[in-house]
């Protein structure tokens, strides 16, 4: 790491430390009123305690399963959807406007419909996570496939590669850097969908826990859970970004 980069990292860490410090101070002074003034240090303590004594664990496990399921299904539909739209021009032309407007639709406004269709339990929550994830995955796969330079496909044809060889050795490696942007965003969007859906639809799970604590003035426990969600999503995103960087390192400048 160069000196410049090191200073940059230090500066970024300093921003977080200062922000947390200010929050700690303001909370201890009671700035946000008696119920909401929870210092970050207390949030962390509460979180550790509720993880240690197991009270939060079932919710965390349930949410993790929902997210995992939603993401897996979103990938299973989104990846082939991108490929199908690439292979079929007429279909792509027909579907494109809807795909572009995908995230314009306020998905959560339809929650009564989800309950009607999927009933109670985790099904409607997973469904919202799936739908929220598919768009980003399919769109980025489609963009990645369309951006394969024509000449690279011409090389494959000129070498008389079979369909499978062309797919495995040219199409996939040429598309992966862009497709992975969708694979990463799809995860984030599935996660957001699931947790938000839990607020309104669930009887357990991390999102439900936050809403429950809010309604019962359990600020400490509420902020502790929010902190967990924050740490988990940032960690997951960072991990995915570092893979993405690795995949993109040979991209042409």
């Amino acid at each position, binding site marked *: 790491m160069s000196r410049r980069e090191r200073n940059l990292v230090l500066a970024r860490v300093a921003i977080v430390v200062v922000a947390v410090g200010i929050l700690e101070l303001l909370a201890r002074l009671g700035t946000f009123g008696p119920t909401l003034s929870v210092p970050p240090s207390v949030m962390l303590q509460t979180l550790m305690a509720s993880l240690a004594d197991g009270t939060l664990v079932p919710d965390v496990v349930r949410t993790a399963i929902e997210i995992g399921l939603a993401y897996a299904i979103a990938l299973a539909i989104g990846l082939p959807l991108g490929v199908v739209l690439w292979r079929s021009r007429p279909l792509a032309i027909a579907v494109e406007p809807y795909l572009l407007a995908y995230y314009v639709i306020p998905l959560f406004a339809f929650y009564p419909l989800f309950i009607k269709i999927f009933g109670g339990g985790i099904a409607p929550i997973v469904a919202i996570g799936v739908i929220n994830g598919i768009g980003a995955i399919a769109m980025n796969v489609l963009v990645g496939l369309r951006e394969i*330079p024509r*000449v690279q496909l011409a090389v494959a044809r*000129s*070498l008389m590669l079979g369909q499978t060889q062309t797919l495995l050795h040219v199409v996939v*490696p*040429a598309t992966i850097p862009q497709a992975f942007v969708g694979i990463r965003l799809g995860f984030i969007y599935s996660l957001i969908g699931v947790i938000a859906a839990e607020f309104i639809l669930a009887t357990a799970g991390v999102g439900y826990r936050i809403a429950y604590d809010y309604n019962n003035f359990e600020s400490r426990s509420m902020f502790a859970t929010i902190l967990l969600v924050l740490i988990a999503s940032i960690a997951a995103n960072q991990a995915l970004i570092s893979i993405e960087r690795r995949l993109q390192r040979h*991209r042409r400048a």
Partner: protein
Amino acid sequence: MRVTLQGIGKSYPTQGGGTFVALENVSLEIREGEFLALIGVSGCGKSTLLELIAGLQTPTAGTIAFDGIPHVGPHPRVSVVFQEDSTFPWKTVAGNIGFGLEMRGADPKARARRVEAMIDLVGLRGFEDRYPHQLSGGMRQRVAIGRTLVLDPAILLMDEPFGALDEQTRFLLGEELLRIWRESGATVVFVTHSLHEAVQLADRIAVIAPRPGRIVRIIDNDLSRPRRESHEAERYGAMIEELRVLLGLEGNREQTRA
């Protein structure tokens, strides 16, 4: 390998429902082991003709035969070097050069040996583990040339392979190409729009006129090699002049160096 083009035509449907004739009635015998240049102004159909020979497009009229045997589609002994950068950014220099062999299932040891030799031949020793984005345009084009040569093609089709390079690099790579061509014994079809490049490299120069694309003249080039403008200045100059007239470039000397 010998290539026979017989009455080749290629037209494309246009927006308005008509047809655009890119090539019309092209007949040409490409001799075994010769270095043939195809020259013409931009848009006259050079790339189209090359892609037809490569089997990447199908003619709308006429036939193509290799050693007298009619053929449709790509041919295992015919390789193409494209005008654009065609290297794979996710593979190293060695990985790119060995790609065709890998796809054809060559034994890994034999493949490594041939890739090694090819790296020397195209002058990329010391760069074998680099990725294309770490190379200059000229070096990437050497990689693309190495990737086709390692397959030991009987026919090497090159579409303005040095088009994106500066004149000095272009000349040096041209001389290297001639050395490789002599060693390999392959038939080379080399597309260019540069008069000097055609005269520097080719045994024969086929002049293509535009709209519709057709061969208007084939010039035999028997200047002694290595060819420099200074060696046989008079005959060199005369050949350039003849090409310039055939291409309709008289009175526009700027373009001849384009």
